[in-house]
Structures are given as C-alpha cells and as structure tokens.
C-alpha cells in the first residue's frame, strides 16, 4: 500500500503505487457533493443511517460509474464515426452491457417511484 506516514494530512500525491485505475486522479476526493449523495441515500425508506465514510464511498463509486458508462457509450459513437456522444449511444451501451441492466425498464421505474 502507499507509504505515506500516518498523521501526514494534506493533498494526496498525484502518483501512488497501484494508482493505474479508472480515472486520471484516482485518489482525488469526491467531486460530487456529499450532501446530494446523502439526500439520495436518505430517500430510501429502508435506510436508517449512513456513515460519512459510506456516503463518501458511494460518491466515489458514482463518479467511477459515470466515467465507465461514458466510456462504454463512447465506443458506439466511435462506431458511428461521431465525436459527439448521443443518447442512443447510452441506450446501446445499457442494452449491451450486463452490469447496466439495472438501468433498464421496470427496475428503473420501480426505483424512481419507490
């Protein structure tokens, strides 16, 4: 793991071992505002409490998800020789990729309507 000393606060270094992950700044703290993510978490009637860490990890996971789906959709734009990502590229990606199945049809409607 990273060799940073405990108690050394401050900004995470740009390069750390094993940081070859999904985005350019994998160790950057969440850009999505935690308050908004927390509002979504609280919208679930089955959830009583969520730790601050849980909200943070959710925010980061959502960022990774956005990166992932954008990249996956872009493949279809490239196939269509376009430099603009369009809605249909998203639809194609969601249909083609198993992990995005939760975005399809009834599940989606069910979640939105609670």
């Amino acid at each position, binding site marked *: 793991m990273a060799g940073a000393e405990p108690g050394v606060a401050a900004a995470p270094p740009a390069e750390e071992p094993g940081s070859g992950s999904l985005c350019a700044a994998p160790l950057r703290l969440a850009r999505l505002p935690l308050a908004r993510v927390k509002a979504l978490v609280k919208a679930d009637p089955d959830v009583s409490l969520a730790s601050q860490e849980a909200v943070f990890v959710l925010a980061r996971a959502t960022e990774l998800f956005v990166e992932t789906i954008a990249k996956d959709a872009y493949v279809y734009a490239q196939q269509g020789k376009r430099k*603009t990502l369009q809605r249909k590229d998203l639809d194609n990606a969601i249909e083609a990729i198993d992990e995005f199945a939760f975005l399809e049809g009834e599940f989606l409607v069910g979640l939105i309507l609670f």
Partner: protein
Amino acid sequence: MAERPEDLNLPNAVITRIIKEALPDGVNISKEARSAISRAASVFVLYATSCANNFAVKGKRKTLNAGDVLSAMEEMEFQRFIAPLKESLEVYRREQKGKKEARKDKDKKADSEEQDKSREEENDDDDERMEEEEQNDDEEVDN
C-alpha cells in the same frame, strides 16, 4: 419523506466535468446524453444504497458503512471499482485524521509558542511575560 425530483439529481456541472475528463479531448456530449447519464448516476446511487443496506441488515447494523457499499459493488458486478474505492477511502481516512490532528497540533503549537516566547523574555520584562501568559490562558479557554 418524499423528495422533490430536483433534490435527487446530481449537479449537472460536476457530471459533465467527470464525463469530459473520461473521454478524449474534442469529444462532445449532447444535452440528452448528459441528462441520461445524470439520471443513470442517481439510479446507481439508489440501487447501490439498496444493495448496501441489505448487507447492513444482514450484519444486524442500523448504520450503513463503507464496507457495505464495497460489498454492494461486488454484488452489482462492479468489482473493478473496489480497488480504486479502497484507495480513495484510505486517502479520505488519512485526510479526516489529518484534519483532527492538525486542529490538535495547531492548538498545541500555539500554546508552546507562547511558552517559548515567555521563556525568552524571562530575563526581560516581567510584565510582558505575564501578558504572554494571559494570552496563553485565553487560548486554553478557547479550547
């Protein structure tokens, strides 16, 4: 506790920035595509929360924790997120710890600086030293 639809959306500007940084330079996103991704992101949070909550319930806990969210990623077949998420969590924890210690250190440092000053001036003005000590006391009271 019904939320208005706007409350369940994530900020467009941030979503757009994340998308742009994930894609090569010169690539654009249509408004519809951006909006669809934003909604998908909200659904992702809701779905992940629901999954994570199952793990909390299984663990007989009322509070969702980071581990539950990681377990949810596994469940949702986003295993490749887990390593980067763990790294981010480490950084987050260090930052949180650092903030706490920075606050403690700042107070300690302020106190010892005051004490050093008074020691230096011991041979000088007694009045000044008392002033320093008073200030020192003020700092402690603030704590």
